[in-house]
Structure formats: C-alpha cells, structure tokens
C-alpha cells in the first residue's frame, strides 16, 4: 500500500478513536467558566466528606445557575471482587 494511503487509513482510525470522546467536549467546555473552576474544589471536598474515593467518581453534568453551580456525579465503587451499582450524586455551591 502506498505510504499516503496508509496515512489516510491512520487518519480514519484516529477519527474512529476520537468519536467516542466528542460527546464529553461540551462538559469540558464548562470549565472555561471561572465560576465553575472556582466551585470545583468545593464539590470535590463535598464528595470527600461522604467517604468517596474520588477516582471512582465520574463527572456527568454541570449545571451553572445564577445563584449556584451544581455538579452531577456518578459514583461507581469497585473492589477486587465487587462492583457496586452506580450511585448518582449532586453537589452544589
């Protein structure tokens, strides 16, 4: 196969690898807001007060309201032998 066809194939594979990540871009865009960035550490602290392992928490949504910023999380605890059902949590500041 000529080299440039290989490059095109790899470009196609890159696109396929990136497609599953695209829906998360709007969520990441929220962090461009200073209010969201300011509220994020407090949201994590609230999760810590519940005894959660932060590495098992996935951010699902951010709701930036006039009076507060709310983060919606999914907590998926996993041990060596068990995966508990996901738990939905909302923290607001």
């Amino acid at each position: 196969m000529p080299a440039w066809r290989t490059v095109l194939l790899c470009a196609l594979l890159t696109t396929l690898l990136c497609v599953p990540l695209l829906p998360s871009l709007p969520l990441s865009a929220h962090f461009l807001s200073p209010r969201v960035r300011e509220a994020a550490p407090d949201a994590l602290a609230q999760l810590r007060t519940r005894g959660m392992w932060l590495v098992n928490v996935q951010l699902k949504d951010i709701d930036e309201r006039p009076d507060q910023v709310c983060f919606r999380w999914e907590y998926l605890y996993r041990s060596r032998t068990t995966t508990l059902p996901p738990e939905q949590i909302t923290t607001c500041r």
Partner: protein
Amino acid sequence: MMRRHLESAGLWIVIVVGVALRMTDIAFPDISTDEAQFALGASAAQPPFGMALLRFAQEIFGPSAVAARSVSVLLGIVTLGVIYGIVRHLFDRKTALITLAVAAIFPSHILFSRLAYLSVPLSCAWLAVLWAYLKATSKRQSLWLFLLFVFSVAATLIKTQGLLLPATLLLGRAIERKGKVLRDPVSWILLLSLVPIALYIVTHPGIAATLLLYGGTMYGVSGFWSRMTTLLITWWPVLLLAFPVMIASLATMKRLPWPVWVLLLLGTAIGLVLGPGHEYYTTHLVYWALPIGLLFARMATPARGLLLALLVANTCAILAPHALFATPWTHPLYHEEGYWNTHADRINAALADAKSVIALGSVGHHVRWYVTAQVLVGNDMDIAPSHKGLFIVFDRNELTKIPQATILYEDETLVVARK
C-alpha cells in the same frame, strides 16, 4: 566454530534465566496501592488502555494479584523480543543476541515485570514505537508506517506520559528534515497518533488536575540536586553492578542513531522529572541494554563472558526466588511475605458480613483490594458521636474519633472496631 556455539549456548542460558526470573515470586509481595489503583481501573490521571489490559487479564484468570501481574510478566518477555528486533535492525545478529541477554538479566526490568505497574507495558510500547520508527524511516514499507501508528497510539493510551516519545520523535524528525514535514508520511503518522490522547486529556479534567496538583512539587526540576540524590538512592539498590556498566557503556553512544538517544534520554530522565523516589521508573533503564550490548559485543569473549556472569550474579543477588536463597542485597519486597497476604483473611473475618467499613488514617487503594466490604475514606468524613458502624483504623490516634468503640481485631498495623 565450537567456541561460537558454546558462547551462543551461554547467552541463551542467560536469556532463559532472565525470562524465568520474571515469572517467579509473582504472588509473594502484597499488592501496592499503585498496583491496586491500576488493577481496579481506578486512576483519574491515566488513559484507559493500560488499566484495561489489567482488567482483561482478571476477567480471564479471575480477580487476583497473579492475574493482574501476568500482564507485566508477558509484556516484560515481549520487550526482550522487541529489543532484539531493534538491535538486529541496526547491527548484526551476534550484537543483537548479546544485547538480548543483557536486557533479559537487567534487574530493575525483572523486578517490575513481576508487578502490576504500568511501567512495563509502557516501556514495551515505547520500544515498539522506536523499532517501528527505525523501520519506517529506513525501509519506507507501509506496514511499518501502520505499526508506528498502532504502537504510538497504544503508548499514549497506556499512560499519559506515553505521549512523550512520539512527540519527541516528531520534533526530532522536523529538525532532521529542517522543517520540511508536510510531505513526510512519518511525521503525519506521529502527529495523528497524538490526537486521541490530546482529546482524551481535554475531556478528562482529572489528568490536568493531577498535573496542576503535582506540578512544581513532585513534577519538574525544582530542587535539582536533591532530586538527583533521591534518584541515585532509588536506583542503587535495584541496579547495583549494572549501574557502573551503564556508565561505561556511554562510550558506545556515538554508534547509536538519534532516535535511540531520545529513548535513552526519556527513560533516564523520566524518574528525575516525574518523581525521583518512585522506583517503578527504573523499569525504563532497561533501554541501557542497547549501549551495554554494543560495549560487550566489542569485547573479547572471555571478558564478555566474565562480565555477563557478574551481571547474572548481581541480578540473582537482588532478585533470586525467595525460596532458593536470600542475600544482604535481596530486594525488600522479597524479604518476607506481605502483611495483607498473611492477615487479610483474619481482618475480613473480623468484619464478617459488613456491607461497608470506614477507614481512618493513611488509606491506600490496596485496602480496597484486600477488604471485601465497601471501604469508605474516613479522613474527611464528619463522623458524628452517635454514628454506628465498623471502622478500620490505621493510625491509633484516630481512635479518639470513635470513643467507646469495641475492638474486634488488632495487630501491629491496624485495629478493627465496632461502634
């Protein structure tokens, strides 16, 4: 002819010893907190592929330390084949075999081939990237271009720092071609391979958060001499005689092409910049087998044989199977069987059928590995005086948080209490 056969046989014995050492004492040490983090797929700072390999092994062989560590064992052995391929491409069969023997017996690589860190998968991927790069730039075969893409993407998605080699090779390629990269397929392949990890970092704030958290403290070059001292203190016990041999091999560096220099520099500096006290970065020092192999290949056979025998003895002194013998230099992980391996059953029996337990004190991910109940991190929890439940306490000072609790189990490491 007879002498060549004898030497070849000797080299293969060294290689077999190295492969065998990678497969011994796998279950002996406790799972560490970092290993548990990766084996449980619980790191917000890493892309998914490396952790997925560990999960996949556990899906097939069951959730055990041996299953998780089998990934490092397998990829540690594959690494040796890749090193042979690189040197065979650059030099002759004899030099490649000698280098293979040196890599097989390299102590820090053997150590981490027995553990479930991501350093062995990453070093294997980086070597594969180098091999494919050398082949793609010399033979111009499309297959090697494609493999360069595959190995590069794999490296970037095993660990975030995996992007460093493809990115540096891209930079080196641009310098080599004086900026004329628009019509260069190799440059395009490397650039494309970096796109998925770039998008992953943008869409996963945990990675950027980790960089911000550790940047300027653990990450970086601040306190350079202190870092160098810590680095050498970390390297010495896991290398011993291999270290001066590494230094001596610097004399052969000018025979190696610049992409190999890039890999050597990355592998050597990564510990200095990202955490000099982290022993797992010594995995990457196996790249020094390349210049060491060149050094040995130029020696007379008796001198080469003697040095290889010394290196084998050096490695066995550090990493021989614990059931065979121990030496003053035996790695601390193999002095005695891990605490959790010998006590987890009793701790879980004390917890009986508890659904959850609150852990107080220094709690690592390994606790989640060994304790069957759900473990809550109690350090930031507001535990009311009326709170009832089970606790694992690692720091006895924390017992003041749970007055009048009944102790169900205690030893020199922890206390299990019920309130």
